[in-house]
């Protein structure tokens, strides 16, 4: 190797310190001809995999390392020479995290000494022990420290010298070189890199300010003094070490010693313990044949041959053990009453179905195993499991117990800078006024922080700032910080299970949740490392269905089993076709409610299509409208070739599913399942033009061989190309369709149990609790207010209605709930004082219960109760019940507006009036209620008013904005065309209560108001 190698380098995975993505560092290294590069982030290997991959792809040798914090706060740089060194680094990083409180990793020197094998140690930056002692004027102690490291690491210890042209750097270098010469230790030059290119020093300053919660003006003491911490080429760094060329040469020497391979595919999953004398393949086959009889009775020839086909392929791909692992998890779930189902492409597998991993019959649903597994796959397919949110922790703990904490960990995820937090944090660092930052962050709707400029430009309020230099800095910094990791969190469900101890592969650290440990890689990193993960995803709808079914068993029918309900109930489909689907899984969104009256699903298969099509992809791919038109008989159903008919019949000739893309490629061009899946992937979002061109020729040749004309074949190929990018996975949709039906069935037949469960499992779905309360009311189910004697922690069914639970009241936590329930069981509460004396509830909890109306049953006004609470607090629970004349006051009752406001403050909803009832008197004449407006003929000009409960501007809508407003009578959909939106954009974005003028539109049973004018509704509510 020639030149210089950077061995001390931070990416943005040194959170709020490094100012470049790993791939930017690699790209810069490639530009300057650096033959190798190290990554040494603070106390972690978070970016190691993506760095490794990017470096390998760029032809640069990756050196994997870390900058560790020692117990005294000093830094040390460690580089892995080999797999032993890499494992030792993982173990050291793990120990530094697990032995300390979260966010404060550090390690003792003695631990370092125990795990020194295979590691090259550099003495560190200014914060290294040796350097900091010299800077403190303690050269004797600096020498002692250096000897100590030399004794542990021997010839693999180097004194690290850095010259970033900071004040004192040259003197420090000189002192370090002298010390190294005296002790016979080699030196190495590094540049303490924190960004790839010089101009990123500004972003690094901003990150430092964010980390220190300071502005640029007031952070001079913590920011770096100059812009010299970038990746320097050999020619740039050489003059700084003119007197010590050996230090530069040693960087090359060290890089040559470091050879680590980050491919762990041989550790992918543990051996499953099978009965003696059997292999995983034999045991899996036995299980499948046994369980196929449970699923199918006597399995048909088709089922039997499909199972054999799948088992054969699973065995050839060495996946039998993986299937057994997943089966075991699902078996535990089943035996322990944990609602769970496999999701995604796994539902294409009959083996997965008979094992009980998935709930969808692939034979009946006409699914396709090749979409899940085929011989040409290069990576293991994930089997993801949806589990009831309420039970998820139990399942995760089972996996930890079964495989041991050394072999199982949660995957992490990186919470990144998005538009709102980018605006606030970057703006604050730049010293921008908080009020402006607040308004900007509320007004912005773009998805990425890169688009903030375009988004805000359209708003007059901010245009005046836009020509200033400060704005340029702000926008540029927001753009640069987009997608930077901000902090680490646990992935929603990814668990990694390995055959070797995980700490040898990836460092672990504490999660925020007590007792939970997370690995430092996210799911992409885990996949790139060749490891396997199982996603255990909490799905609240499973909790809802489970809870509603339990309530039905308790209140109505002790033998009720949701799995036995008929799947063809006309009344349920009638409800769905009316778009009366608030709270129903997957089909409650505004877009779904607009489509259901048109598509009129009448079967699980229809619901499968419904779940799949209302997504940005199919809408963009122009699949939805042709399907709807054919469904309504407005367009003729046709097929480009007879071979496509059996595949596309179910979707009226329109390609909607990924499985159909594969089947079409097989039917027309004779592709194998693997080739067909390669075609789908080449055509998908991550398009590969080159791969597509190769496959196109193969497709045309295969079509010719099957007697399909070239013109037709080309048209079919282009159609596949258009749809493949956007098609949805049918097996995934089918799994969800079943849940959609079950939730609709419950809403139809047991609404009080349904709404109780829906309110108990928030947040979920599309709508807030206050909207759910309104929907319940319209279905004849009253949501009764929180009551100190009648409520429990959760919402309960009470005489066909729902009693709101204590959990909805702010500051009433689990301890308070247990306390209340215990006391309720002894005897009812008779007064505020009784509650106060018998429970240990805090002031806040009691106050909030009063404000929410929980003690209205005592017949004393809320304001009076608050006064009395103050007196009780003064007296204390042990004090004597003395009464003084000056404390006896008669206070006026709260007005209904005040009560309503208090209820919304305390619990986010009111069980009494809708706010619009109180505003109605003050609303101008001519403003109609939503039900009135809906009853008028199409084309009528109307004005309505209400709360905005839903606001959408989908990318597929060509600038149209969709609102849903609610008043005391119901919901109304509003469509805002682009020209109208331009005029009223600020109102639309920021006002919760609006008056809207427009024209009624009625099409295919769907009612909208096409808006022409929007304004905020500013009225004084009726006081009574």
């Amino acid at each position: 190797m020639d030149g210089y190698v950077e061995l001390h380098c931070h990416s943005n995975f040194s959170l709020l310190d490094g100012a470049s993505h790993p791939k930017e560092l690699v790209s810069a290294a490639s530009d300057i001809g650096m033959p190798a590069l190290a990554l040494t982030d603070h106390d972690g290997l978070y970016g190691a995999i993506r760095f490794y991959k990017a470096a390998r792809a760029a032809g640069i040798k990756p050196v994997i390392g870390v900058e560790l914090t020692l117990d005294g706060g000093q830094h040390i740089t460690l580089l892995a020479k080999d797999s032993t060194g890499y494992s030792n680094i993982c173990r050291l990083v793990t120990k530094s995290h697990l032995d300390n409180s979260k966010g404060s990793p550090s390690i003792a020197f003695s631990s370092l000494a125990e795990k020194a094998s295979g590691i090259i140690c550099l003495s560190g930056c200014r914060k290294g022990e040796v350097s900091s002692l010299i800077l403190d004027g303690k050269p004797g102690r600096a020498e002692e420290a250096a000897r100590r490291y030399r004794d542990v690491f021997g010839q693999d210890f180097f004194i690290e010298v850095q010259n970033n042209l900071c004040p004192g750097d040259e003197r420090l270098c000189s002192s370090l070189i002298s010390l190294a010469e005296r002790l016979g230790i080699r030196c190495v030059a590094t540049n303490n890199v924190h960004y790839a290119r010089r101009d990123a020093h500004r972003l690094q300053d901003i990150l430092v300010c964010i980390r220190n919660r300071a502005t640029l003006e007031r952070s001079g003491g913590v920011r770096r003094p100059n812009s010299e911490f970038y990746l320097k080429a050999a020619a740039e760094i050489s003059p700084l070490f003119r007197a010590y060329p050996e230090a530069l040469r040693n960087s090359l020497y060290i890089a040559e010693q470091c050879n680590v391979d980050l491919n762990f595919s041989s550790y992918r999953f543990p051996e499953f313990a099978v009965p003696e004398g059997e292999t995983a393949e034999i045991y899996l086959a036995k299980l499948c044949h046994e369980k196929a009889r449970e699923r199918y009775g006597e399995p048909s020839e088709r089922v039997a041959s499909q199972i054999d086909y799948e088992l054969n392929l699973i065995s050839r791909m060495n996946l039998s053990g993986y299937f057994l692992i997943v089966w075991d998890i699902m078996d535990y779930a089943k035996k322990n009453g944990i609602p769970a189902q496999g999701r995604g492409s796994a539902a294409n597998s009959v083996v997965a179905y008979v094992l009980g991993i998935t709930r969808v019959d692939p034979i009946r649903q006409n699914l396709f195993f090749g979409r899940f597994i085929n011989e040409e796959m290069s990576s293991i397919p994930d089997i993801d499991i949806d589990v009831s949110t309420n039970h998820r922790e139990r399942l995760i703990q089972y996996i930890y117990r079964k495989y041991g904490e050394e072999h199982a960990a949660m995957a992490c995820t990186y919470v990144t800078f998005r538009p709102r937090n980018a605006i606030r944090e970057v703006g604050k660092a730049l010293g921008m006024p908080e009020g402006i930052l607040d308004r900007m962050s509320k007004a912005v709707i773009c998805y990425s922080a890169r688009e903030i400029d375009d988004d805000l430009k359209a708003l007059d309020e901010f245009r005046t700032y836009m020509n200033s230099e400060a704005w340029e800095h702000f926008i540029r910094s927001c753009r640069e910080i987009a997608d930077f990791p901000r902090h680490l969190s646990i992935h929603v469900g990814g668990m990694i299970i390995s055959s070797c101890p995980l700490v040898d592969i990836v460092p672990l650290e504490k999660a925020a949740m007590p007792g939970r440990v997370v690995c430092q890689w996210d799911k992409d990193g885990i996949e790139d490392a060749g490891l396997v993960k199982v996603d255990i995803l909490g799905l609240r709808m499973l909790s809802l269905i489970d809870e509603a079914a339990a309530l039905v068993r308790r209140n109505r029918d002790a033998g009720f089993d949701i799995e036995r309900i008929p799947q063809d109930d006309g009344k349920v489909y009638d409800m769905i076709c009316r778009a009366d689907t608030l709270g129903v899984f997957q089909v409650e969104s505004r877009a779904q409610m607009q489509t259901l009256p048109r598509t009129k699903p009448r079967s699980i298969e229809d619901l499968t299509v419904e779940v799949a099509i209302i997504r940005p992809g199919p809408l963009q791919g122009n699949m939805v409208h042709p399907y709807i038109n054919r469904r309504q008989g407005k367009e003729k159903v046709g097929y480009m070739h007879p071979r496509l008919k059996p595949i596309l019949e179910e979707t009226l000739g329109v390609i909607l599913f990924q499985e159909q893309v594969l089947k079409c490629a097989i039917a027309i061009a004779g592709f194998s399942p693997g080739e067909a899946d390669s075609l789908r992937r080449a055509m998908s979002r991550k398009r590969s033009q080159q791969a597509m061109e190769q496959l196109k020729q193969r497709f045309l040749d295969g079509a010719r061989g099957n007697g399909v004309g070239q013109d037709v074949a080309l048209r079919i190929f282009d159609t596949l190309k258009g749809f493949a990018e956007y098609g949805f996975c049918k097996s995934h949709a089918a799994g969800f369709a079943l849940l959609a039906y079950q939730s609709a069935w419950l809403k139809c037949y047991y609404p009080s149990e349904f709404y109780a469960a829906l309110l108990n499992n928030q947040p979920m779905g599309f709508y807030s609790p206050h909207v759910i309360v309104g929907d319940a009311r319209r279905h004849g189910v009253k949501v009764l207010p929180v009551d100190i004697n009648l409520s429990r922690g959760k919402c309960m069914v009470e005489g066909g209605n729902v009693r709101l639970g204590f959990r909805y009241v702010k500051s009433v936590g689990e301890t308070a709930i247990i306390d209340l329930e215990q006391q309720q069981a002894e005897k009812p509460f008779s007064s505020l004082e009784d509650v106060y004396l018998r429970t240990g509830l805090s002031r806040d909890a009691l106050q909030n219960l009063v404000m929410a109306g929980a003690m209205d049953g005592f017949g004393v006004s809320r304001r009076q109760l608050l006064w009395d609470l103050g007196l009780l607090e003064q007296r204390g629970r042990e004090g004597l019940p003395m009464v003084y004349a000056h404390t006896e006051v008669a206070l006026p009752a709260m007005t209904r507006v005040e009560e309503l406001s208090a209820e919304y403050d305390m619990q986010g909803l009111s069980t009494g009036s809708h706010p619009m009832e109180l505003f109605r008197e003050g609303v101008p004449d001519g403003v109609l209620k939503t039900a009135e407006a809906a009853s008028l003929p199409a084309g009528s000009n109307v004005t309505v008013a209400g709360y905005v409960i839903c606001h959408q501007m989908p990318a597929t809508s060509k600038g149209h904005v969709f609102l849903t407003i609610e008043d005391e009578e119901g919901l109304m959909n509003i469509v805002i065309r682009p020209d109208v939106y331009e005029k009223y954009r600020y109102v639309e974005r920021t006002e919760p209560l609006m008056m809207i003028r427009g024209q009624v539109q009625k099409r295919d049973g769907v009612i909208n108001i096409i808006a022409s004018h929007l304004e905020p509704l500013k009225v004084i509510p009726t006081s009574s």
Partner: protein
Amino acid sequence: MKASKRVTKRPKEPQQIEVDVDAAGEPLSIGVYGGRQKILAVYERWRLEDEWWGNEERRCYYKIQTGHGLVCDIYHEMLTDIWYLARTCD
């Protein structure tokens, strides 16, 4: 460089000075106290950059000794290409 008993003085305002430089931009001589003093040694170099968001400063500092025995800190303000005397040691 050993700690010296010299007293350092900082002028109230950095004093603009004339400096001759070589092809690499390194200072060769400075104009102070009415005359030209050749630079015999550059003991240290450092760089300070600040306030890129407002009144930007980009300075290269040098601790030098001249042929007249003057030890001082000078700096080159890179944005204006002006040299200043920052501090002297008596």
